[in-house]
């Protein structure tokens, strides 16, 4: 019997872990995010109202003027964008709670505990990703209204993209939150991060393409093929549009463009960017961001805040 056992003093051990990851800690932090989400009705309400505003009101409203983009109605075209918008909000809201937790919440309790920070971070990020999937699924409920037919595979594919996008954005949000000391900057942060990422991702206007209605202006077959060689897929007819170069550059450097493009492919079989780039960014950026976020949280722990 050791001296400790003899005194009956069994100090806490560090939670059991393998390769720096304690599954129990990851689980308990993930569950905490889930419980918090389940008890916050406002988030669900926000997701619903955003969907109605963007998908139904803007989709049908602007759709009346634009008719079609590449053969899809405008509401269909922006469906993936609205999903992305919901994911961005869910992920950043989860991440930003770190600021609150650190000032008056549970974070200090976590920091004085022997729980490994990497596992704490992982639990939080996975929680943010899960909430993102749930919030991102709200627009899927509206698909019958806009005439998009879902299959089991398209839904599973969409969930996978949402999960990785959510993971990426939560991680990005945690990196930002770890630099914030107060909530004062929260409004500008959410506007300054969500809006550019959203607007410059090809979510509400195409990079290039044909806008207009079927029969509005029939495109002859040879022109259609020529356009295809330029990467413009003209299914119906209408105006050929191309964004100004400077906006194009911004769209190309925005990682969300590729995640959104993959989501659009999964749901609508329509794509504007190379598949390889979509896959690489969607599944590659998240793990990298997670590593940086875990590092940011560890550094935060070392700085005692």
């Amino acid at each position: 019997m050791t001296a400790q056992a003899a005194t009956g003093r069994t100090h806490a051990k560090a939670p059991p872990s393998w390769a720096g990851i304690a599954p129990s800690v990851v689980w308990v932090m993930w569950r905490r995010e889930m419980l918090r989400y389940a008890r916050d009705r406002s988030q669900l309400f926000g997701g619903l109202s955003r969907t109605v505003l963007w998908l139904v009101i803007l989709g049908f409203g602007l759709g009346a003027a634009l008719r079609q983009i590449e053969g899809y109605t405008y509401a269909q075209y922006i469906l993936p964008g609205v999903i992305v918008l919901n994911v961005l909000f869910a992920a950043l809201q989860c991440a930003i709670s770190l600021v609150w937790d650190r000032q008056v919440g549970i974070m200090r309790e976590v920091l004085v505990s022997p729980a490994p920070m990497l596992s704490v971070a992982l639990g939080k990020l996975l929680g943010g990703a899960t909430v993102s999937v749930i919030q991102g699924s709200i627009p899927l409920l509206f698909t019958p209204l806009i005439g998009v037919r879902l299959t089991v595979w398209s839904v599973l594919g969409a969930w996978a993209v949402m999960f990785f996008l959510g993971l990426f954005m939560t991680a990005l949000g945690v990196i930002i939150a770890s630099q914030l000391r107060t909530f004062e900057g929260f409004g500008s942060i959410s506007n300054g991060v969500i809006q550019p990422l959203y607007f410059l991702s090809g979510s509400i206007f195409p990079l290039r393409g044909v806008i207009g209605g079927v029969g509005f202006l029939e495109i002859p077959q040879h022109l259609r093929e020529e356009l295809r060689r330029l990467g413009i897929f003209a299914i119906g007819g209408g105006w050929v549009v191309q964004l100004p170069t400077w906006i194009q550059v911004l769209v190309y450097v925005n990682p969300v463009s590729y995640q959104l493009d993959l989501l659009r492919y999964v749901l609508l079989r329509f794509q504007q960017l190379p598949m390889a780039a979509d896959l690489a960014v969607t599944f590659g950026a998240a793990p990298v961001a997670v590593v940086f976020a875990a590092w940011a949280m560890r550094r935060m722990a070392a700085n005692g805040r």
Partner: protein
Amino acid sequence: MSLPPERGGSPAASAAAGGPPAVDSGVYTASAATSAHGGAASTFGSQPAVTVEGLGRRFGDLIAVDSLTFSVAQGEFFALLGPNGAGKTTTIHMLTTLLEPTSGRASVMGYDVAREPQRVRQVLGMVFQDPALDERLTARENLELHAVLYGIPPRERRQAIEQALVWASLVEAADRRVRTFSGGMKRRLELARALVHSPGVLFLDEPTLGLDPQGRRHLWERIDALRREGLTVLMTTHNLPEAEACDRVGIIDAGRLVEIGPPGELVAKHAGEGGDLEDVFIALTGKQLRDEEATARDLMVSFAKRGGEHTR
């Protein structure tokens, strides 16, 4: 006291009663450690629970804590007494590995806070000045989270949590969200939570601050019970009766330790007949202790802590 009866029993007694052996009684509070304390004193008692040597912390140009040296013996009830902004919280944060010292050394239960922070975290219990609870979770869920963070095995979690709820008199409120709790209830929950993993040293940062007189009394009764069980407690306070009830008091002002000793001795030495610690404090620093208003220095310290001029 509303202590569960088995907590007073020795490990041997609980083993004889058919319960799981020593591990079980040790999981919750230091009570088991206490009951065996007499026997262990020869091995453990010689080593102080907390040792602080020349400990200091600067925030930029500001010296928040300046070269503190003291030690706290095992089983001792020790208070750092001083006005707001004296460096009490900064000291506690360094001892609990939340803040790295910029000079000197400190150890808790023999583990160096800078070199073995992970070990230190395992042996300490902490109650912060402001509640560190998840208000959207229930009391039980907060305790569960704690039990997992401290690596308490799943089989023992349930019992540890139930005991904590009983001890904090929160059994009926266990499944209510902490948001609905009064200040006193939150504090009791935090105190019970800090004991779940049977820490070697309990750190309390202004434990009764902001509570109404009744909540203050209830909490103090519980803290006092811990003391009778022989738990080592290091607390900060600027409440005189609380400091007077401690074994020893370290008076701290402007980041420096001005005087240290049993309250009675300090009063006899610096204040004389009929005096109290307040008089001691005035005699030593020329200032009132009960200065609730933040001084310019407090504002500087908290400003610097938030990141100085880079704060936005």
